[in-house]
């Protein structure tokens, strides 16, 4: 027996695995490349220097720890919403309702942080739990309606978004508005409900940098989601229901129950984006604070092909783009909307690639 055989096969396995991985992420890499190329072309057509534009992108994101801190800060809520969308997607559900879930969660956090006067070791976990529960409830309703009545979760999550906007707007403007203020926002949460900024640990970050501990929480969620999906029985059930619903049913898995708890989990994850905003940054609830994080989460999940670690990378990329969009607007006068348009095209491109490959697998 050839003693080298197991090693060779192991090596071959590795190579085919990494080839598979490369193939899997090829459309995403192409999309990113194409996106930046297209941006350069637009800048060139406008009669500006494309190289200068790329220089600004680089310096806006990576020229100092401070700049990079802002990129990660922008990325934090997108990691949560990206994971939330991906968890749903893996089980064949579309959670379009992240936006509403994170609003409700942010308000629940702010309410808990305002009204309970407890030491930090109690209040911080309580506030986080409040956010996760609120987000989970907002996600569970469409999940339950889908499982019980077969109502399409896309429509119901969209409806729940609008209900959340209206409800939160009512609560903030009519009941909990900060006295003697015109801005629709609540008063501040207690000092003990705030989570620290990373600048207080990392000497290289200036104190003004808003990057906070919620980013570490987001990284923790990435690892959690990876292990959960890949190595636990629940994760297996979730993926099985997403890939082969009938097989799952025959195997004794109840797809309806999976539908409900996946939406619960997804809503709770989206809710953590509210924690990042309220406990980590603004220390209060501001009406319509999110600039479409729930929807950008869809783009993040698509770009990351629903792989938690790739979602982290995709969220950082979008964090960079959000920051760059601002700098480009100021320095070159290129409107921010172009990046939004680019984001839309990115989504359509990726979803088309996915559609083609799905069709190819079917036949």
């Amino acid at each position: 027996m050839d003693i080298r055989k197991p090693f060779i096969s192991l090596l071959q396995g590795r190579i085919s695995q990494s080839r598979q991985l490369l193939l899997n992420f090829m459309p995403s890499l192409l999309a990113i490349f194409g996106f930046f190329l297209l941006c350069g072309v637009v800048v060139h057509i406008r009669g500006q220097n494309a190289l200068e534009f790329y220089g600004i992108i680089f310096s806006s994101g990576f020229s100092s720890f401070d700049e990079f801190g802002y990129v990660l800060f922008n990325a934090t809520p997108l990691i949560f919403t990206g994971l939330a969308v991906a968890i749903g997607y893996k089980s064949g559900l579309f959670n379009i309702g992240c936006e509403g879930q994170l609003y409700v969660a942010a308000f629940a956090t702010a309410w808990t942080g305002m009204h309970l006067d407890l030491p930090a070791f109690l209040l911080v976990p309580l506030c986080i739990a409040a956010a996760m529960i609120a987000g989970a409830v907002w996600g569970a309703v469409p999940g339950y309606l889908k499982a019980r009545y077969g109502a399409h979760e896309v429509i119901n999550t969209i409806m729940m978004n609008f209900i959340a906007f209206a409800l939160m707007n009512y609560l903030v403007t009519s009941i909990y508005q900060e006295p003697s203020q015109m801005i629709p926002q609540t008063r501040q949460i207690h000092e003990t409900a705030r989570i620290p900024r990373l600048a207080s640990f990392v000497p290289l970050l200036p104190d003004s940098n808003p990057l906070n501990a919620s980013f570490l929480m987001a990284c923790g969620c990435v690892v959690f989601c990876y292990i959960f999906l890949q190595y636990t029985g629940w994760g297996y059930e979730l993926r099985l229901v997403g890939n082969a619903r009938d097989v799952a049913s025959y195997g004794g898995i109840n797809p309806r129950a999976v539908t409900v708890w996946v939406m619960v989990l997804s809503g709770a994850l989206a809710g953590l984006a509210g924690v990042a905003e309220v406990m980590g940054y603004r220390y209060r609830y501001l009406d319509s604070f999110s600039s479409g994080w729930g929807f950008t989460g869809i783009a993040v999940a698509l770009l990351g092909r629903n792989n938690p670690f790739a979602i982290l990378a995709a969220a950082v990329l979008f964090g960079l783009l959000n920051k760059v969009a601002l700098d480009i607007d100021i320095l070159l006068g290129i409107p921010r909307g172009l990046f939004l348009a680019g984001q839309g095209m990115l989504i359509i491109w990726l979803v088309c690639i996915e559609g083609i490959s799905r069709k190819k697998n079917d036949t």
Partner: protein
Amino acid sequence: MILDLIPTTLRMATPLGFAALGGIYSERAGVINLALEGMMLIGAFGYVVGTQATSSTEFGLLVGLGFAVGLALLHAVATVTFHAEQVVTGIGLNILALGITESLLPTSKQVDGLPHWQLPFIGSYSFMVYLLPVVMVASHVLLFKTPWGLRLRAAGESTEALAALSLSRTKWQYLGILLSGLLAGAGGCFLASEVHYFTKGMTAGRGYLALAAVIFGNWRPLSGVSACFLFGFATALELANRWNIPVQLLNSLPYILTMIVLMGFVGTSRPPASLGK
């Protein structure tokens, strides 16, 4: 007291009604259309840009409709030809439309509105208000009384039936989506022509509301447009704000009602069998 809410109701319901009819064509052909929002937005944008450029509202209307149909074509190519996930495509198109319009024209100057027609007993409204019932009835007849409509619906109900008649599902789905763009674009044009300007994100969720009306009306033109009038009335109540009901409650009423209808307690709401496949 209720009567003076009618003008606002009509003005609010008309753009929704056109978009909802658009949604019905697309969904009846089996394609989920979340891009109604983007189609309305780009329609409104096109109307204002076209009118500004030539100071002719007819040309503006054409440009608006053209832009919306263009976006619909993108939807059709992605979902029908490339089998892209319909829900995500719709969201992507909405973001695309928002980005394009926002970067090219954050806020416009004043433009002329579409011509108003003075009718006895009814009053003076934009001609599109009178057009809506005509399109509604025409859509009903077209979809449910003609072989043409039967085929379009077959694309959404039973692909086998289409295949048995050796008809192309692709063709009928393209047609459904393009009609959807045309009608949603008309809704957007009306919206811009009534307020006389364009501002970024001005549709403010009306496309999604129209989609709710489609479901509320059980994917049928007559009931769908009736739902739009109900939603328009809720908005009129909200704007008049006479009974101290929190505006946010009236605001979210259409969404709550749609969720209840989807549960199947009130009437039956059944989507086309092959919707989304």
